[in-house]
């Protein structure tokens, strides 16, 4: 197991007392796996990514039974130990890539920084040339052929897609074992999104790096996704192989999200209503007790005020008192 998160709870102080923004989240990523984490905005997906990277400001209180990367406890690292992992074995790309590029440095200068000294073999005086070579090959790897022009460009001269490619290039500079992609394509048009997905899939196939993809749209996840986790309001609802979950959602939330996606309703009658979840995602001040989906769940019963535990059901894990479709599974 590459990344092992058990019962990660992130809380913060608000005017109404302590709020668990993430509530006992468990998430596992295997070597060479593409794992997609799906949830609406505000469900705490990015918090998980930032907790892994160690980017959270001190006002967030992070607690976990386990937050391990391979056999390293990510929760108890000092700055130096963290630097040996972050940017080396774990890399991250972000939503709105342009704003993650320094506006005052050329792309070449920024990629130079991403190439680590320990990856260079040449003597001190030839380092510069070797570094440049590495940067050029990085650019080629993410499909940018015109490297001279690109290296002398500034962030404001790039398109969103090109900026994301640069971010990917800088992320893969050290062949990370795990790439965390926090909604990398949510601000892009579909064609560019497919381009980026194809690029990520290629890198995954070539280097066997694991990808933890964070997405808010179940209808636009990477086709190559192997495992899928659904998160709602800081609780993991269901996790399992992508094809199983998409074919037979067992959790009411997975089903509801699938139903809102148009692809599932090719045979829908004209002018029919698109089925959606009733209500809105709860705010942090008014989190329901128990299963946080409860108030919006059409199958909810009184027992749902007790938080369901994530339990194994054959190849999937599920946190629901009344799962759907599971009977058929047992036939």
């Amino acid at each position, binding site marked *: 197991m590459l990344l092992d998160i058990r019962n990660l709870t992130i809380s913060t102080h608000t005017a109404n007392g302590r709020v668990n923004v993430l509530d006992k989240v468990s998430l596992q990523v295997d070597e060479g796996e593409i794992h997609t984490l799906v949830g609406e905005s505000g469900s705490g997906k990015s918090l998980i990514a930032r907790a892994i*990277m160690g*980017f959270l400001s001190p006002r967030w209180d992070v607690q976990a039974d386990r937050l391990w990367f391979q056999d390293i406890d990510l929760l108890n690292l000092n*700055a130096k130990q963290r*630097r*040996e992992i*972050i*940017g*080396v074995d774990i*890399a*991250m790309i*972000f939503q*709105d890539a342009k*704003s*993650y*590029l*320094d*506006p*005052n*440095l050329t792309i070449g200068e920024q990629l130079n*920084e*991403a190439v*680590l000294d320990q990856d260079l073999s040449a003597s001190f005086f030839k380092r510069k040339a070797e570094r440049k070579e590495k940067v050029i090959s990085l650019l080629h790897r993410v499909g940018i052929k015109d490297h001279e022009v690109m290296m002398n460009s*500034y*962030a*404001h001269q790039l398109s969103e897609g090109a900026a994301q490619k640069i*971010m990917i290039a*800088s*992320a893969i500079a050290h062949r990370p074992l795990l790439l965390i992609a926090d909604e990398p394509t949510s601000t892009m048009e579909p064609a560019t999104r497919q381009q980026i997905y194809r690029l990520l899939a290629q890198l995954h196939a070539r280097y066997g790096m694991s990808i933890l993809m964070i997405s808010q749209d179940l209808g636009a996840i990477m086709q190559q996704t192997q495992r899928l986790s659904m998160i709602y309001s800081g609780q993991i609802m269901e996790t399992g192989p992508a094809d199983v979950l998409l074919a037979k959602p067992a959790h009411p939330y997975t089903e509801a999200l699938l139903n809102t996606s148009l692809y599932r309703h090719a045979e829908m009658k004209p002018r029919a209503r698109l089925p959606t979840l009733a209500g809105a995602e709860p705010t942090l001040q008014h989190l329901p007790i128990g299963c946080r989906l409860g108030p919006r769940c059409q199958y909810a019963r009184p027992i749902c005020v007790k938080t369901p535990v994530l339990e194994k059901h054959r190849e999937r894990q599920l946190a629901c008192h009344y799962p759907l479709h599971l009977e058929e599974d047992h036939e």
Partner: protein
Amino acid sequence: MRIYVLRQLVLLIITLFLLTIFAFCLSYWFPGDPVTNSSGIFSDDTMRYADAASSRGFDGNILVQYWHYLAHLFRGDWGISLLDSDPVFEQLQLRFGATLEIAVLAMLIALVPGVALGVLSALNFRKPIDHTILSMSLSGYSIPVFWFAQIAILLVAVRWGMLPIAGQINPLFNIEAVTGSILLDIFINQPENMGLAFRSAIRHITLPVLVLSVMPMMLLIRLTRSSMLDVLDKNYITSAYAKGLSTRRVISSHAIPNAMQNVIRELGSLLSLLITNTMIIEVIFSWPGIGSWLIRSIYERDYPVIQGGLLLIAALILCVHVALNLIHAWRYPQVRKDLHATS
């Protein structure tokens, strides 16, 4: 970039041109006789008065007069002082050097600690260091410079006798003014006791420069701090950390350069404040600069001097603004995108 430079320079020339029109009009707006106001020659000196009137085109219409005014301006004939009949242009040159000397030195002294303390306080946001620096800068900024200067003289110069009270250099040294800047003049004059002269000059210049540097330093701290806090919240700082760079590296190669962008832009407005303060300081420390001269001329209604001094200071501020814009655009590429020089 070339287009940006050209645009800025064209803008500068046009503004300077407008400035000369304004300065020209001053001779008419000031009370009294325009010929006297612009040339500094009284009408009782009939011969020279007639000369001045004809050479400045006062027999022609206003455009002819303006043309002659420009010609005199470029020739370096800015009239003579009404008080002591010194040629304005030569005097301005000398005094300008003296003013620049303390203003530039004060700015340089303010720059490094100002920026460093600002960065330090931003990095320790809301910690005791931050509060200390911030309250220091607030109180330093609130102390009026004329009061502070006098207290400094009283304590440092009078009570403790560590530094001289006023002046540029001990008058026993016979230094001929060439540039007006005392340190440069000593170097040019090469007197036999140069070391002593330098020592005396530095002792004289220390107090005014230090007092003058307080306000820009305090402003710089606040500017740098807020700009730095802004930048530290930016996404590219997060991604720099994500690359695995050390905090030190992130701060020095991403945060500070970007924070300086705002600071450089604001330096221009700091300069106008600095010039105003320089004038006050010059009066208090009897520094023979343009400011003390100008203030005396305003008291004495010495119109040619007022006119020339205003023109020079305004031109200086303009040029510095344009220079800062150019530095800004040269260093910060996304500014160049904006080809129309808007500021």
